[in-house]
């Protein structure tokens, strides 16, 4: 295993930046997700306008992978419809399970594509998928 393929520049930046880590005032949806075995614990907050995710943020604690994954996901889903977001969830989970490998198809995942390598580290897969599962719970 190569640490360089896990702790990439992008993951470090998202982990440190915290630009999506804040409380929304009056969110329409608040969904908590946690990995009890390891202590990642996030709350995803969404502001909806009809079917559109107008704003999103998260609060909580966790490892660099879970924090970065959450932050990248939020960048991606802001301004999208709920259905588009759900489609992305499936794409992301498909990428992690190595079911979707087509570069073109994965392009839509933006920065999140750097988490592709996490599938080589079974112990950390849960960290990467936490926010995506939480999003799915929140909107479906």
């Amino acid at each position, binding site marked *: *295993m190569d*640490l360089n393929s896990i*702790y990439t520049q992008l993951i470090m930046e998202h982990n*440190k930046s915290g630009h999506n880590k804040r409380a929304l005032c009056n969110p329409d949806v608040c969904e908590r997700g946690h990995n*009890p075995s*390891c202590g990642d614990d996030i709350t995803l907050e969404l502001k909806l306008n009809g079917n559109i995710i107008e704003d999103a943020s998260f609060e909580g604690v966790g490892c*660099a992978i879970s924090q970065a994954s959450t932050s990248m996901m939020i960048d991606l889903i802001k301004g999208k419809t709920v259905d588009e977001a759900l489609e992305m969830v499936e794409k992301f989970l498909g990428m992690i399970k190595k079911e979707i490998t087509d570069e073109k198809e994965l392009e839509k995942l933006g920065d999140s594509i750097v988490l592709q390598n996490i599938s080589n580290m079974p112990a*950390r897969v849960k960290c990467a998928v936490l926010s995506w599962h939480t999003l799915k719970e929140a909107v479906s």
Partner: protein
Amino acid sequence: MLNFDPEKLKKDFPIFNQEINGRPLIYLDNGATTQKPNQVINEIRRYNETSHGNPHRGAHQLSIRATEEYDNAKEKVKSFINAKSIEEIIFTRNTTESLNLIAYSYGMEFIKENDEIVIAISEHHSNIIPWQKVAKDKNAILKYMYLDEEGRIPIDEIESKITSKTKLVSIAHMSNVLGTIHPIREIIERAHELGAVVVVDGAQSTPHIKVDVQDLNADFYVFSGHKMLAPMGIGVLYGKKELLENMPPFLTGGDMIEYVYEQDATFAPLPFKFEAGTQNVEGAIGLGAAIDYLQSVGLNEIEKYEKFLVEYALNKILDIPYVNIQGPKDLSMRGGIISFTIDDVHPHDISTILDSYGVAVRAGHHCAQPLMRYLELPATARASFYLYNTKEDIDQFIEGIKNVRKWLGYGS
């Protein structure tokens, strides 16, 4: 001076004949489970090749041999913890099953409404949840002893929580998170003065320090084989005979009976009353071999050596400003466990990064969520030592620690 050479002893453990990520395997997760020496592996093999049968069930040679070997393993456990007789030694699967047996059999029978059960906030989930169940079912009260800032139970906490209302105290001899060795002698004395029985969770202590159940005067003492060089799936419940005799069976079925009628049954004498169904005989043989191995080194030697390792590690860690240590500073109050955090880095990442240096440590809540909440920590990383660890292991561990922050883009 040590009377054993850890470097040489390590050669008894075949698992170390491999590399992890191109580096020697440095195993510092002994609090979770330990590795097996050839002496244990070979003994299980010998048993399977020569003596395997169902004990206590047949008059043929193999059944007789298996019975002898099983009883012999129990004899070894008895001497190891200095119980009075093998009637007081019950084989279970692990610490968790032993604690459940006590909770369901002793707890459900003898704990009554408004009685109090006292445990510490630092307990492992397996020493919390069975008591929650007893407290709920019996309308009893589950009370916690809290720790001071160094992870110790203050004497006044013991005195204020253990009172004449207390019927049972259950406490870990050594904390699996903080490494604190709790003052169980004082706790047992106090509880006995007030008429309460004491259960000691010896999962972390039995492998590492000399345990004498009579000297401690513990009512129950429980531990797991897999944390002391033996296989998974074999554990021990020690209980004072007079207590075990008055307790109803926990699991029922074959082997634990005397006579069975259509509507009723009478039960076998101790210890078989609590050993229903076919037991883990090869596990018991493995545990016997592990005890032989530990005794050939000597528990006092092991304890002394682990103290040396902890002191060596702590001295190095305390020089690193961004590493924070949990648990007592006083070495006489702690065993070979160091829980730590690193500024700005989640313990998960610590564990992944150390793994790339070949160093195995555990990260998480260590099955002690109430303690983590009490300490206001989401998780810690934990290094836990055993007799096969060396100074060089610790050097490699420290080297890894010094590199952790770099990987997450922080200057050291």
